[in-house]
Structure formats: C-alpha cells, structure tokens
C-alpha cells in the first residue's frame, strides 16, 4: 500500500499531536514542533500546487476500501476548489502559530490546533460521504476542547451550545447521507457512498430530494453561519480563545461553503439551480443584517464576528449566483476573507493580551504607540472593506458582477450595502486606532519580530492577489467551468 501525499497532510499533524500529548515535552518544544509541522504541510501543499493541472477533474486520488461490506472507501482527491482552500490553510496556519507564539497557553492547546488542522484537511480531501462525515465530526472534538479549556467568560455554556448546535445539523446530514447510500444500493444493487457514484442516483422522488437537500444545507448553514442559524456565533466568538476564533472565522466557516460546492451542488444540481434565488436572497439579507449588527457592537471582537458573518452571506450569494463571476468571486473571497479576518482576529488577540479590553470606545490612540500593529491592522481592514488593489476588492467586485448578472436590483442593493459597510468599518478604524483620546493605552505594546514576520506573507499576498488576480484565478477557473457547464448546465 502506498501512502499518498494527501494522506500525509492529513495524518502527520494528528500523529505528531498525539505524540506530543503523550511525551513529556515542555511548551516550547511543542510550539517548535507544531510550527515546523505546519511548515512541512506548507511545503507539501506547495508541491501539490505546482503539480496540479488546471483541468476540471479530481487529482491526487487515493482510493482504498475501508468497510467493504458497505462500500465505504478511504477516498481522497482534490480539484480547484479544494486546492484553493488547502493553499489557504497551509499558508495561514504557520502565520497563526507565529502570532499565537507569545500567548501563555499550555501544550494541549497546541496539540488541539494540530488535531484541528488534521480534521480540516481530511474534510477537505474526502470524496466519500461517510469519510467526509467522519472528519467533519472528528474536527468538532478538538474545537470543543480548545474553547472549553482556554476560553473566557461563560466558556462551558458556549462550548456545549456550539457543539450541540453543529451536531444538530450534522446528524441530520448523516441521515441524508445514509438515505442516499441506501437509495444507491436499491438502484444499483451495490453499496457505495462515493461522491462520483452518489451523483448518479435517479430513483429518489423529487419531494424526498428536497428534504435531503435541506438536510445537507442545514448542516452547512449552521457551520457558516447563514441567517437565521447564527445564534451560536456571538457567544462562541466572544468567549473562545484567539486561536479558536481564528479557526472558526477563517477556516471552519469556509468549510461550510466548501461543503455546499463539493456535495450539495453535484448531488442536487437541479434543486441547486431552482433554489438559487432564495439563497442569493438569504445571502444578501445576511450581508445587510449582519452588517447592521456589526455596526451596533461596542466590542471589537463581536463587531468582527458579525462583519465576518456578513461577508460569509455575501460569499454564499456569490456561490448561488450561478455564473462564472459570482462563483470565482466567492472562491476568491473565501481566501481573501480568511486572510484578512484571520489576521484581524489575531491582531485583536494581541491587543487583548496586552490591554485586556475589547470595547471600541476604550481604545483610541493606538497608532502612536504601535505603528506596526496599525499598519497591519490597516491592510487587513482595507482588504475586508474591499479597497482597490487588495484581493478583497477583486473578489467583491466579481461577486457584485455575478449578482448583477443574476438580478440587477439585488445587485444594486448589495453594492450599496458593501459601500456603506466599508465606510462604517473605516470609521471604526479611525476611532479605535488612529484617533487620539484620553484613554489609557499605555499598556499596548507594538508587535514583536515574530508577529511582524507572521503577518508579512499575508499582507504581501493580499496585494499580490489584488493586483494580479489572474495568476490565481487560472487554477480554479477550469473547475468552476466544469461545475457550471457539466453539472449545473447553466452556461455562462
């Protein structure tokens, strides 16, 4: 049996994590090992990136039987979508480790982070529905630990809440997966949960298919979160430790979108097209609703939580706009937003560590104390609000074009919302960071060398992707074309 590169990316962090937990190493060794493992993963991901052929099909396939009697396979593979998110994860996780380096968390924190990385990559590569579910749920456990052990405030309550909430969605998805598998068995006489087999099912009645579609969408909508499944968001984000918030906002939420693209779209293409107007509506509504909610917040972490949810609504609207612009814009925004929000939450984490406060009104005048902090904060902020020459601009422009093609009234509404939201965010930036004030910010310390180094690649990428988007879009366009023409059959 040959172990493929994708398996190495999945299981290396997991094995290392367990080893670290068992062996009596100190925190420092754990940090060094974790960081170097994330670099190894980055290196492997880069090698995949260079070998990846820009065609629409699955590559780097790994396929072994797992539970033969039920046709469950250990089946891995990547296409343009998963490659994009893999690269994203591979790049931002080492940066996040550097940013978190100076925190005083014990080694179980780092071990959990490694486990989360494994779970995320497993979810990302799985092409078998049961295997996907396996990683999807397994990922929850270290997240559960990280919030419960290292969170603040009413952490135990919010841990149980987010666990129960996401479990609710995934268990219904589990029933739907089983239903699909059983239908396949009845139609073809053999068991299979392989995605490429499941898409061939024709025997399920339309009414049931709508139920199945809803079951899948529920799981993903809770994870993203889409309106109205966002009620776990605020508590989790404000009580989770910085690393946990970072994982939630920049990676796990994106996996929800990824799940829609990977599974919902190919399995239910017709329902996907039919329901597109509703989801564009929900997405744009989320954009507006969460945008307003973000403006109302006094706490900077909560404000970013809502602004993150607002962008995710925008991403979903782009995915459901059923055209090249919207979809590639969404994939692009997944990356841009992960970098920017991830960076912002990490920066807020630094601020919290130094000053211990999160209210916007208690800040102000940080710019003079911490110039590097301010520069990075500004770059991430510009990316979020979509200032030209950042990748945020490119992706938001593409999505807006996509929504305009879908329906121009919705297009106008979303454009206006983005503009207004941008101005509010910049106003906040001015109040919290630039403006002089009487507040005592003397405890604020500027970023250290490690942190400056950590955010440097992200900042460079934000501009490179903003100025030369074609370099990156070329890798994903064939996949999107394949989805639009061959699966959805909607043309351009």
């Amino acid at each position, binding site marked *: 049996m040959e172990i493929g590169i994708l398996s190495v990316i999945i299981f290396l962090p997991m094995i290392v994590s367990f080893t670290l937990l068992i062996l009596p190493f100190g925190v420092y060794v754990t940090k060094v090992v974790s960081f170097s493992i994330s670099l190894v993963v980055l290196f492997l991901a880069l090698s995949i990136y260079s070998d990846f052929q820009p065609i629409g099909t699955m590559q780097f396939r790994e396929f072994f*039987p797992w539970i*033969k009697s039920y046709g469950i396979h*250990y089946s891995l593979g990547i296409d343009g979508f998963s490659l994009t998110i893999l690269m994203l994860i591979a790049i931002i996780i080492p940066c996040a480790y550097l940013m978190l380096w100076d925190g005083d968390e014990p080694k179980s924190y780092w071990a959990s982070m490694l486990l989360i990385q494994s779970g995320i990559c497993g979810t990302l590569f799985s092409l078998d529905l049961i295997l996907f579910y396996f990683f999807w749920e397994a990922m929850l456990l270290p997240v559960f630990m990280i919030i419960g052990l290292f969170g603040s405030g009413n952490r*135990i309550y919010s*841990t149980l809440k987010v666990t129960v909430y996401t479990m609710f969605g995934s268990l219904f998805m589990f029933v739907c997966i089983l239903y699909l598998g059983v239908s396949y*068995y009845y139609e073809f006489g053999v068991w299979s949960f392989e995605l490429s087999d499941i898409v061939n099912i024709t025997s399920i009645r339309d009414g049931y298919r709508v139920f199945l579609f809803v079951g899948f969408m529920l799981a993903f909508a809770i994870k993203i979160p889409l309106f109205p499944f966002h009620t776990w968001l605020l508590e989790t984000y404000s009580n989770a430790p910085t690393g946990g918030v970072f994982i939630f906002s920049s990676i796990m939420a994106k996996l929800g979108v990824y799940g829609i693209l990977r599974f919902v779209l190919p399995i239910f293409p017709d329902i996907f097209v039919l329901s597109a107007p509703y989801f564009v509506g929900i997405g744009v509504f989320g954009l507006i609703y969460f945008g307003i909610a973000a403006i109302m917040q006094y706490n900077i972490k909560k404000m970013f939580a809502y602004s993150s949810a607002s962008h995710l609504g925008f991403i979903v609207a782009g995915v459901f706009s059923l055209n090249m612009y919207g979809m590639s814009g969404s994939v692009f925004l997944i990356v841009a937003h992960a970098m920017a929000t991830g960076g912002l939450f990490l920066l807020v984490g630094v601020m919290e560590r130094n000053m211990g406060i999160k209210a916007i009104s208690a800040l102000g005048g940080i710019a003079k104390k911490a110039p590097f902090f301010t520069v990075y904060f500004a770059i991430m902020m510009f990316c979020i609000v979509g200032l030209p020459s950042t990748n945020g601009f490119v992706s938001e422009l593409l999505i807006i074009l996509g929504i305009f093609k879908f329906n121009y009234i919705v297009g106008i509404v979303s454009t206006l919302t983005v503009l207004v939201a941008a101005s509010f965010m910049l106003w906040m930036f001015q109040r919290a960071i630039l403006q002089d004030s009487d507040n005592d910010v003397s405890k604020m310390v500027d970023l250290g060398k490690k942190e400056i180094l950590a955010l440097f690649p992200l900042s460079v990428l934000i501009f490179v992707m903003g100025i030369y988007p074609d370099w990156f879009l070329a890798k994903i366009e064939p996949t999107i074309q394949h989805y639009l023409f061959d699966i959805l059959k909607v043309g351009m």
Partner: protein
Amino acid sequence: MGDISYLLPLLFVGVGAVVLMLLSYTKSLSISSIAKIALGFLVLAFISNVYYFGELHKVYPYENVFFGMIVSDTYSVYFNSILLVGAIATILIGWDYFRPDRRFTGEFFSLLLFSTFGMMLLVQSAELLSAFIALEIASLSLYVMIGFQTDNIRRVEASYRYLVLGSLSGVLFLFGTALIYASTKTTFLGNIGVELLPQTGKDISLAIGGATLILITFLFKISAFPFQNWTIDVYDGSPLPVSAYMASTFKVAVFAFMLRFVAMDLGYIKDYWDGLLMGVIILTLAYGTFLALAQNNLKRMLASSSIVHTGYLLIAFVSIDIIGESASSSIIYYLIAYFLSAMGAFGLISYISSSDKLRLTYEDFKGFSHVRPYMSAMLSIFMLSLAGLPGTIGFIGKFYIFSGAIEAGYTVLATSAILATFISIYYYFKLIALMYFYPSPILSNVPPLKGLPPIFIGFIAIAVLWGGIGNTFIAFFPSIDFLIDVAKLSHRSLFLQ
C-alpha cells in the same frame, strides 16, 4: 472431537460453577484465589468456544440425549464469546472491588458462573422450555448477585424489586409458551414457524397471543418502554461490577434468543407487532432520553441511557423481516459495540469508586482530568462511543442500525433515533466538559492507575477505537469488515438444516 467439542464451553462454565460452590465451603481459600479459579474456567470455556468462531456450522450435539433442545451454531458461538468476555471482564474489573470486608465470598463467583451458564444456555437453546429454564437460571443467579451485600439496604431493595418483577415476566414467558404449544403442538424453534404458515389453514390467534406474551418478557428484560421502571433503581442499587455485568451481558443474551426466535419462527406474526413495536421504540427513545437528562448520578445516567440504546436496537429488530440479514447483523454488531462501551464505562466507574464510597455524581468529576489524565481519556472515549461519534465503535454501530432502518423504509424511526442521539450528546458531553473544563478536582482518594483492572479497561478503550476506524490495512487483526462478515455468517447459520 465429536459432539462434546460443541458443548465444551457450556460444560466448562457449568462444571466451574459447581466446583466453585463446593470450594467456597472451605474457608482456607482466599477470595482472590477463588476469583482466579473462576477466571480459569471462563478462559477455558472461551478458548474452546473461540475454536469455532466464524465457522459456518449448525450442530445439535447429542441429539439422542437432548432431542435437539440445545444447538451450537455460528450464531451461538458469536454470542457466547461476548458473554464469556463479559464474565471475564466483570471479574477483572471488580478485582479490587470484590473484597471480604464487602461481604463478597466465594459463592459470588459461583453465582456469576451460574448466571453466565444460564445466558449461554439461553443463546444455545432451540426450544422454548429449555429457554425458559435457561432464562431463570440466569435471572435467579443475578437476583442473588445484586443483593449479595446483605448489610446494604439498597442492594436488598434492588434485588427484591428485580426478583418480583422479573418473576412476573418469567411467568408471562411460561404462559406464552403454553399458548403457543396449544396452538402448534410443539415448542421447538423452527417447527413452530412451520405450523404457523398460512398454508396450514390453522387459527393462529392463540399463538399470536402466546408470542406476544413472550415479546413482553423480552421487552421487560431489555427494559423497553413501558417495562423500564425497574432499570434505574436496580442498576443503581447493585454493586457496580454487577451493574456492568447486567448492562452488558444480560441484554445480549436475551436479544440473542429473541432474534433467533423471531428470525426462525415469527415472520408472520411479526406483522401484527409492527405498529406496537414502532410505538414502543419511539416511547423508549423519548422516555429513556428524558430519564437520562434528569439524572445527576453517573450510574443512574448510564442506566437510563441503556434504555435509549435498547430503543436503537429495537429499530433494527423491527425491520428484521424486511431486510433479514442486514438487520440482524446490525443488531449483532451494535450489541458488541454497546457491550464494549458500557462495560468500559461501568468498569472504569467501578474502579474509581472501589476505594471509597462515593455517590459518583457529575459534580464529583469536576476537574478530574487534572488528577487522572489517562482515566479521563478512557472515560471520554467510552462516552464518545456511547454518543456515537465518528472514530469509535459506537459510530459504526449506529451507522448500521440507521442505514438498516432507512433500507427497510422506517425513515421516521431513523429520524427519531437521530433526535435521541442528538440529545444524548448533551448528557455524555457534559461529563467530558466537567472532567476537562474545571480547574480544581474534588474527587479525593481516587485509586491510581495501576493493577489489573485499568490495564484491562485500557484494552477495552483501544478496542472501542479500533472498532471505529479499524480496517484491513493492518494484517492479522480483526477489522470492522471481519466482524460484519462473522455477524452475517451467524445470521446465515440460523437457517442451516
């Protein structure tokens, strides 16, 4: 080797029980050496049993003596292995618990072997009367085992409660057998089914009544709604190793017999039960969940959650006439999954409580992971498996049960089971949250991680994990597929001539 080889497991346990009873008269033997002797007999039985494991066969040993009342097939070998492992596990887990100052004497082990003997006989009986005798041997020994510590009023109460209710259900079984005999003139499994075929043109209403009475006994023994009332108090009142033994083995044996009976004979009658059983399942799931949510004591929570697990098992049971093999193999697999997880959980708790008398509430486990990280990890694994999270054997078990239910068209049942699973996350995860997320430990005097029981429980924990991810990558090691294949073979062996 001849017929004797098929009876060896039963013989070893039965003879062992008698030998231990005689030995317990001599006061010169210490309790640990008696335990060792009991263990020896059980291990011998296990070895002679494992010899036929996974081999497709069906034999009526010494037919001229037993007239086909006792059968040995792949099915019985499979279940006997579970039961024997259960008995062995009970002794190993309770190694530090069974002490003379707790009034445990040699007779206890004799009773344990008698009870195991009864259960094995139940699994192997191919006739209703011998099944009744086997059931009563197993139950009577259990009643005494529960009340063995006569100085403790709760033990005696639990024992008495179980005795009264259990005897009532036993009587129903006997009456049901009589009715079936009145209708079909036979008590042999296999022949009953032939007599009940619609082609014979008989009035089978008596047999339906009789079979329903037997079903009630069955529902009582596995503590399904509305016969679950005894469960929590009896489990809570028993010594912990005995609770572990009851929870993990007795249910297996009763299920094994009922599965055999229904699969071989009651295909036509089962249709009359469908509505009834669906109601029973949904109420069992709902009521068990409700009870489990309300508990504050860990032992009572596990007892209540065992009712929920009964509900899951019944889902596969109700679909057995539609999808036959996959339903019964999913029951067989789920039973082993539940057996391992419950044995591990009960065992670990009983080990934790073996040194001092704790109530073992949720609160007691606050911050437990800081004093005993490995024990917390093991307990978490068992909780995750009971909750059915991926990566544990509980997940695969639930996967089979639910996919079987959908396959048979019982999507409503699968959905309600999913709801019960969803709520169960709360009461299982609560323990994990308490163990890990609180700083200061309250539990004092917890025994350290050493000696026989923790090692054995560690093995169970590894088995639980392996059952959730294991596959054929690692050679010479039983994989999930292997267990499923054996489960399917076991089902097939029921119908051999």
